[in-house]
């Protein structure tokens, strides 16, 4: 503990979180395990994993991109945490490298474990599983090295540097509107997805594919890389909507705004952006296989949009309940 106060403090924080919210922590773990099991047993999981196992180059590419981005992000986050931690003034070094490697190893173990689960339930064969595991491990190693080498932004650079200032409405003072509230999750989504960081990585990957680095058809690989970017953007927006909902509800709790109006004002821009990203995604998959895109891609995209919106609204309503926003009968 004395030699590694950062690690010791982290362990104590986890232990406290478990001790004081034991029921919630166990429930969350159980729900995650059940969800993973359900996803592994779903009918489309086998074919998708099987395809990824057969096209090792594409799997390697996806894993490399994802692990590069996540390593860069973890490193950035660890740098900020080390510089702003309450232990920053201590004459000991923060175990940043160990922290980043441990998280990468954890994610890799999770992905390989999921593939193993799919193999165990018979969704994929042994050959596909071993190919998948090798491709993902190789991608993780390359991604870890590449992500660590990526230039990082200034330590402690606040998130708003990556957000965009929108032009104010002309009637902002004479006819105020709730619509600018939608800029908040949109800006948070931009911070999560970090286009300035992801674009060069994807550009390099996309340039490498047609140059004959592997045997995957260029059209397919390009579509996969674009698909990753669109998916990343869509997931970032969903995460941003969930992340912002409570803070927004707490801020507006003393006002008279209703909960449905609040949820609509908060999420309309996120929904529009997700629709645009999913349209790009459908276009890219349509280039590869139009028939399956129409049969599977469009319903899947619509399903995701509905699920994302439902999750965001549920989180917003829960935040309203917890903060008292729009409540008509609080008190005793």
């Amino acid at each position: 503990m004395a030699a590694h106060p950062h690690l010791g403090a982290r362990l104590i924080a986890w232990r406290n979180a478990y001790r004081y919210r034991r029921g919630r922590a166990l429930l969350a773990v159980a729900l995650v395990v059940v969800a993973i099991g359900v996803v592994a047993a779903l009918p489309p999981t086998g074919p998708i994993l099987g395809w990824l196992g057969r096209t090792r180059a594409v799997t390697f590419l996806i894993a490399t991109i994802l692990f590069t981005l996540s390593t860069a992000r973890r490193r950035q986050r660890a740098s900020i945490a080390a510089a702003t931690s309450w232990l920053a003034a201590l004459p000991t070094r923060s175990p940043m490298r160990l922290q980043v490697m441990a998280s990468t190893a954890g994610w890799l173990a999770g992905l390989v474990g999921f593939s193993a689960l799919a193999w165990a339930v018979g969704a994929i064969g042994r050959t596909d599983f071993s190919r998948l595991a090798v491709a993902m491990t190789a991608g993780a190693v390359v991604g870890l090295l590449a992500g660590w080498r990526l230039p990082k932004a200034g330590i402690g650079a606040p998130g708003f540097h990556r957000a965009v200032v929108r032009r104010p409405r002309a009637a902002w003072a004479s006819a105020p509107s709730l619509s600018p509230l939608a800029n908040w999750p949109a800006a948070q989504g931009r911070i999560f997805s970090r286009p300035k960081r992801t674009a060069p990585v994807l550009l390099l990957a996309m340039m490498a594919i047609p140059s004959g680095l592997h045997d995957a058809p260029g059209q397919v690989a390009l579509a996969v890389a674009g698909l990753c970017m669109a998916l990343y953007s869509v997931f970032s927006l969903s995460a941003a909507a969930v992340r912002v909902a409570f803070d927004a509800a707490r801020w507006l709790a003393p006002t008279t705004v209703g909960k449905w109006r609040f949820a609509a004002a908060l999420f309309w821009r996120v929904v529009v952006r997700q629709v645009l990203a999913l349209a790009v995604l459908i276009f890219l998959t349509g280039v590869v296989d139009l028939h399956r895109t129409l049969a599977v891609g469009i319903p899947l995209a619509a399903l995701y949009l509905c699920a994302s919106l439902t999750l965001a609204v549920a989180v917003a309503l829960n935040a309203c309940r917890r903060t008292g926003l729009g409540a008509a009968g609080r008190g005793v």
Partner: protein
Amino acid sequence: MAEALLVRSLHAGYDKLVVLGGVDLEVARGEWLALLGPNASGKTTLLHCIAAMLVPSAGSISICGHSLRQEAMAAKRALGFGCAPEYLPDLLTGRQCLEIYAAAKGLEAIGGDVLALAEEFAFTPMLERFVGSYSLGTKQKLSVLLALLGEPALVVLDEAFNGLDPASALVLKRHLRSRVSAGRCGVLLATHALDVVERYSDRAALLLDGRIAREWSREELAALRATPGEGLEMALAAACAGS
């Protein structure tokens, strides 16, 4: 004077932790009440109950005669609450915050006096910047401006002078005093700044161990002001020690 706030037998806390154990408080329209108390005495908890951000376990709160339980929206309409600076949205600009808050309060326009106060605060050049880039004092200014939107009958501020530069603090004290003197609102200010209490408040109340342990009337505050030496500071220390 019309009643802006009435709190009766208020009990509140977090899970098993009891913070307020029977608070009685009233603020009239045209009156400035300073809420004093040591750290962790429950001042912010009380203000959060008044702002409907925390559900009390017992007791009643009414704002301008509207019960926070039965007529929550009418009560909130009469309330101007200055939230803590850390609750402000980092990823919105000051102008967006003002616009959104005004719309959320159902206002048709942002009042000229709030825009004039922003000008006096030298806040106008900060309007296009993200709140995340603001200093503590600038966030306090925005928080106060949001609280004053829409001519609220009750203004509730938590440590509003914390981080403000002296010139801006003076502007705010005079602005609040003029609103109170004109009978436009009642002010409930939780503070540790005893100079504000002595010079500008009409009454003061000491919150200790979840109860109002001592109150100072207008006359008592005037007498303390006239007393050479520490005045209110000594009286406060004596009240805390006595309790």
